C-alpha cells in the first residue's frame, strides 16, 4: 500500500493551525497539482488535481469523506477515485509542543485496485509520500505566510 507520513514542527499555536485546517477551502488549493474542488457537504467534497508521476502527469478526480473532525487536533478522511480505480485515506494531526509550537503530521495512503492495481501501486510508491510531504509543507508555508502578515 503506497503511503507517506510527513512531520514538521510549526512555530505557531495549535489553535491557529486548527483555524486554518478545519476549513477545507483554505488548503484544497495547496494540494500539489490542484485544479479545482467542490464542497458537497460538511463532510464530503470532490477534488480534481493533476498528479505528477515523474514520467507523465495524470488528471484524477476523487471524493473526500471526512470521517472525523477532532478539534483542535485532528482531521481524518477517506478518499476514493471518481475517474480511476483507487481508494485510500489520510489525516492531519496537530500536537502542541508548547504555546508557540506545534508538531504537525500529514499522512496519506492510496491503493489502486483492479487488474492494473499491482502496476499502478508500484508507480504510486514514490508519488504518495512525495505528495504527503509537499501538501504538509505547503500548508505550513501558507500558515506562516498568513500569520507573519498579521
Amino acid at each position: 500500500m503506497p503511503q507517506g507520513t510527513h512531520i514538521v514542527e510549526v512555530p505557531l499555536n495549535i489553535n491557529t493551525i486548527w483555524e486554518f485546517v478545519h476549513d477545507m477551502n483554505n488548503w484544497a488549493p495547496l494540494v500539489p497539482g490542484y485544479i479545482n474542488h467542490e464542497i458537497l457537504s460538511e463532510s464530503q467534497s470532490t477534488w480534481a488535481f493533476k498528479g505528477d508521476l515523474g514520467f507523465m502527469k495524470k488528471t484524477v478526480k476523487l471524493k473526500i469523506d471526512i470521517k472525523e473532525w477532532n478539534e483542535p487536533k485532528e482531521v481524518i478522511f477517506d478518499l476514493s477515485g471518481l475517474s480511476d480505480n483507487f481508494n485510500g485515506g489520510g489525516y492531519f494531526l496537530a500536537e502542541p509542543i508548547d504555546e508557540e509550537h506545534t508538531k504537525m503530521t500529514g499522512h496519506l495512503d492510496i491503493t489502486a485496485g483492479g487488474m492494473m492495481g499491482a502496476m499502478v501501486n508500484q508507480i504510486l510508491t514514490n508519488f504518495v509520500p512525495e505528495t504527503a510531504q509537499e501538501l504538509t509543507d505547503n500548508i505550513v508555508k501558507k500558515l506562516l505566510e498568513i500569520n507573519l502578515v498579521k
Partner: protein
Amino acid sequence: MIIKLMIVTLSKERKGDDFLFDTGSIQWDKEVDVIVLGSGGAALTAAVAAAENGANVLVLEKTHQIGGTTAYSGGVPWIPLNHYMKEAGFEDNREDAITFIKRLSLGRADDHMIETFVDKGHEIIKFLHDNTPVKFTTPLSYPEYYKRMDEALKNGTRSLDPAPFDLNEIGEWGALLRQNPIFPPLTLEEGGAVGGIDFQLVAERMQKNIVTMGRSLVASLFKACLDRGVETLIETAGKDLVINNDGQVIGVVAETKDGEILHFAASKGVILASGGFEWNKQLIKAFLKAEITHPVTPPGNEGDALMMAMKAGAALANMSEAWWYPAMVDPTFEYEDHVMAQLGSGRNGPNSIIVNKYGRRFVHEGTTYNDMPRSFFNFDPVKMEFPNEAPVWLIFDQQLKDSQLIITMMPGDPAPEWVDQADSIRALAEKIGVDPDGLEDEIRKWNEYCEQGEDPDFHRGTIQFEALTTGGGSPENNLGKIEKGPFYALPIYLGALGTNGGPKINENGQVVDFKGEPIKGLYAAGNASANPLGPIYPSAGGTIGPAMVFGFLAGQHAANLAEQPAVNY
C-alpha cells in the same frame, strides 16, 4: 587550427547570406573523430559502430533524456534472415525478403538500398549479439503484418523483441533514460504491446529496474557505447554544420540549454541521427499531405537535421511520408506538457467502425497503423475537400466496451467523461457533429454485413493485421454488429511515430547531393534520413530495423574513412 570556414547555420540571429564565411579560426571546444547527433536507435547504433572501428565518438542529445522515440517505442527492429529466426526454426531467404520489400515500396526505393538492408541487417544484429549487451528474442506469437500477401513471409516473423535489460548496468545514466509511458516493462512476446498482461510481473520489473522494449534497446546500446568510451552530452543540441572550403563537413556548432554555444570538431564525420520533423509545424506544412496534429513521439524531433542537410545541399527523398498512426487521446494523461497522443485501440474490434463527418465508412478499419491513415488524404475533386480529414470517429457499442481495452478504458470500468456516449446512434451522431442520417444508414449496412458474414465494401475480416496475434482477420474475429447501447464515439487524429523523409543516403549512410555524390563527412540515419526502403512499414520493427542498419553502416564508414576494411562480424 586555422581554416576557412563556412558555417551552415540555423541560428535565428543570422542575417544576410545563407552561409557565414569566417576566415578566422574556430576555437574548438572539443575535437573528436565522429560526432553523432541524437541518442535514439539510429544514433547509438552508429556510435557503437564508429567506436568499434576505433573512432573517438561524441554523442550530442538535445533533450534532458537519452533514447528519443526509440526508448519510448516497442524497440523492435525488423531484420530479414536474422540468426534468432534461424534458431527459432524459421526459414527465410534473401530473394523473398527483397521481393517483399520491393512489392511494398511500389518502385519508390533504390534496389541497391533494399539489397544492402537485407544483406547487412542480419550481420549487424549478429555482431551486436556477439559483441555487445544488445540481445533479442524472436516474438513467436507476433507474425508479419502482411502475412496474407503472396510475397510475405508466411511462417515466422522477421521482427526482433529486445530482451529484458537490467538498467542498473548503465549506472547513473539509467535515471536519464527516457521513460516509456506507453508500454509496461514487458517484452512484445509477454504482451507488452497487445494486452492480456501480467501486472504483477510488471510491478516486479519496475521495482528491480528491469526494462524491456525500446528502453531495453536504448539502454543496452548505451552500455555498448559506454564500454567503448563514447562520450554523451545531454541538453546539447546540434545547431549548425561546420563545412570547410572543400565542402567537407568538419564539425558541429552546438547549443546547450543555457544558450552556451560550443564548437565541436569531427575529423571523420558527422552523423545526423536526430529524428524526424514531426514536432515542427512549419516543416509539416511544407512537406506532408496533412497536418500531423498528434505526434505520438516525445517532443524533441523538430527537423534540425533536415534543415542542416538542406543547407549543406543534400538531395531529399520520401518527403511527403511519415510513419502514420491513427492516434487517440485520453485527455487526462500528459507527457512533457502535452496531452499525450496514445496508440489507441478498438478499431480492430468486431463491434466498431470508423466514419468520417458524413457518418460514412471510408476504409478497412483494421489495416495497419501506417496504411489506415493514408485514407485520410483522399481528395474529392467535386466537393473540393478531403472528406476523411481527421478527426474521424471510432463508433462502437457496449459489447466492445465490455470486451476490450480501449485507450485506457478497461472492460467493466465505467465510461469516463471524455468519451461521448448516447443511447441511440442518432443522438450520438448529433453529439459529435456527424451526419446522423449517414451514420444510421452506415450502421444499418454494417449490421447487415455482419449477418451475411462479409464486408463487401472494405473487406473487414480478411487481413492478418486486424487480428494479428489471434489468427488473423476473419468474420468471427472482426465482424460484429453495433447494436447494444449505449453507443460510444471517440475521435481519431492524424498521428505519426515519426517522419521518414529527409536527406537521401547511400549504402554507406553518406548523405548525397543532387548529383548523387556524397557530401564529404556527412552521414544520416533513422528518421533524420529518407527511409532507404521508401514509404513502407513492412512489419513490426519496420522503422528501427533500417535505422539501426544504416546507422551502423554510417558509423562504420565514417570511422574507417571510406575504403578501409569493415569491422569483422
